[in-house]
């Protein structure tokens, strides 16, 4: 018989948990992963699709091919979690029971929450990145404005990276001299982390990318082509790229498992739900005040998997906990990149941008499919 381990979400976190648990518990548990699309999408690639450096087809593979044979994949949408009876209801009407449940449903973007926001472009979905690429292809010069319309959002360095890659793109098309790039930041610096801001701000200035601080996007006027901040400032644009507001998935909100934005409250070390037994959440899904990124989901997945393996085997909870580790690459254009590494106890460090970090990111992007989902990278 054994336990029923149920994982909702086939992104990076859910897939790693499923594979790691399957490898450790053998026939002591039935492992089921529910995913609404049946496809695994490599989201860090969206940025490159937007500037034409990656093909959309390269970022999507069938989830079934990434899971060990012991993991059963159900392509369906979870609509309701019932912790009282340890059941999950699917859109098809089917009901699944669980002994251990992992919420790895991630986040969704809600540009519609910004008045006029649907007129803006974004690179937070594959479709959005493809549309933005088409718009950039049609662009013949003018002002491109990049702004942030909600916190938290996935991949905090992405707006800065996009500004640098856009600068490269416009130079390659010989449009840079006919164009302005304006980066609107929620704080009085380019990036939340001060050390990284100090590193990238001189490069932004060198590339002629104009930085405006304390500009928290409130609304867009698509007719006048202006974007206005909560601070009361208005900026004109010819092409607007916004980081959309993010929320947790609907199933989390409908089941009352999260806060007012649908983020699931968990212990920041064990990733267990703060009030509900036998439920863990990882990655974007949680309310932990840390980057919403693939790297966080990746590091958290091994912790959640170890907790579940211990629960299945009836052993004591493992001593290995999530220490807040984050590791991100940040493209700085001109074929260079830097990295950002930190955890709960150590402040962020970023090396001087260099070609080797750009190549390290490119290598990671290419080898991802054979290493990360399978849990082969610690």
């Amino acid at each position, binding site marked *: 018989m054994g336990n029923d381990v149920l994982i909702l979400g086939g992104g990076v976190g859910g897939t790693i948990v499923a594979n790691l648990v399957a490898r450790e518990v053998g026939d002591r548990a039935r492992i089921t992963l529910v995913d609404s699309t049946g496809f695994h999408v490599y989201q860090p690639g969206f940025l490159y699709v937007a500037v034409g450096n990656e093909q959309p087809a390269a970022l999507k593979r069938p989830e079934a091919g990434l899971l060990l044979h012991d993991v059963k994949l159900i392509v369906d949408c979870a609509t309701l979690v019932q912790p009282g009876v340890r059941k999950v209801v699917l859109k098809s009407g089917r009901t699944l029971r669980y002994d251990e449940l992992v919420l790895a449903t991630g986040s969704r973007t809600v540009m519609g929450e910004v008045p006029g926001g649907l007129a803006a472009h974004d690179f937070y979905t594959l479709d959005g990145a493809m549309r933005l690429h088409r718009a950039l292809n049609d662009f013949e010069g003018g002002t491109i404005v990049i702004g942030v319309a909600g*916190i*938290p959002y996935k991949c905090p360095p992405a707006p800065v990276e996009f500004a640098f890659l856009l600068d490269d793109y416009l130079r390659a098309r010989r449009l840079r001299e006919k164009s302005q790039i304006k980066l609107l930041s*929620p*704080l*009085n610096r380019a990036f*939340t982390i*001060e050390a990284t801001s100090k590193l990238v701000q001189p490069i932004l200035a060198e590339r002629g990318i104009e930085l405006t*601080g*304390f500009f*928290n996007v409130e609304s867009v006027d698509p007719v006048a082509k202006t974007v206005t*901040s*909560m*601070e*009361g400032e208005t900026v004109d644009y010819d092409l607007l790229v916004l980081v959309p507001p993010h929320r947790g998935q609907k199933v989390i909100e409908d089941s009352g498992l999260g806060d007012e934005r649908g983020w699931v409250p968990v212990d920041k070390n064990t990733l267990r739900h703060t009030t509900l037994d036998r439920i863990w959440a990882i990655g974007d899904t949680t309310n932990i*005040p840390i980057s919403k990124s693939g790297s966080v989901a990746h590091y958290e997945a091994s912790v959640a998997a170890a907790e579940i393996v211990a629960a299945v085997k009836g052993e004591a909870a493992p001593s290995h906990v999530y220490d807040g580790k984050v590791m991100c690459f940040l493209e700085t254009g001109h074929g260079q990149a830097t990295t950002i590494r930190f955890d709960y106890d150590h402040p962020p460090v970023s090396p001087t941008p260099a070609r080797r970090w750009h190549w390290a990111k490119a290598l990671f992007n290419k080898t991802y499919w054979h290493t990360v989902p399978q849990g082969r990278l610690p």
Partner: protein
Amino acid sequence: MSITIAKSLDLKGLSCPLPIIKTAKAMKELAPGELLEAFATDPGSVPDFKAWAKSTGNPFVESSQEGAVFHFVLKKKEI
């Protein structure tokens, strides 16, 4: 002289830039001259609040610290 606070924000546990964004939103609802207070635990919020006040022209009235909690008072700018 005691001061009257028009709105109080609990920003404890939030990390930057969330305290600034929630404050910016709340300040919009205040009438000119009204005061807003905020409680935050992110140490980075101290310089961020001061810089935000300076940048937006909303006077920074006072700040204090009790244990790990920072207390700020901001005044909505006169038009």
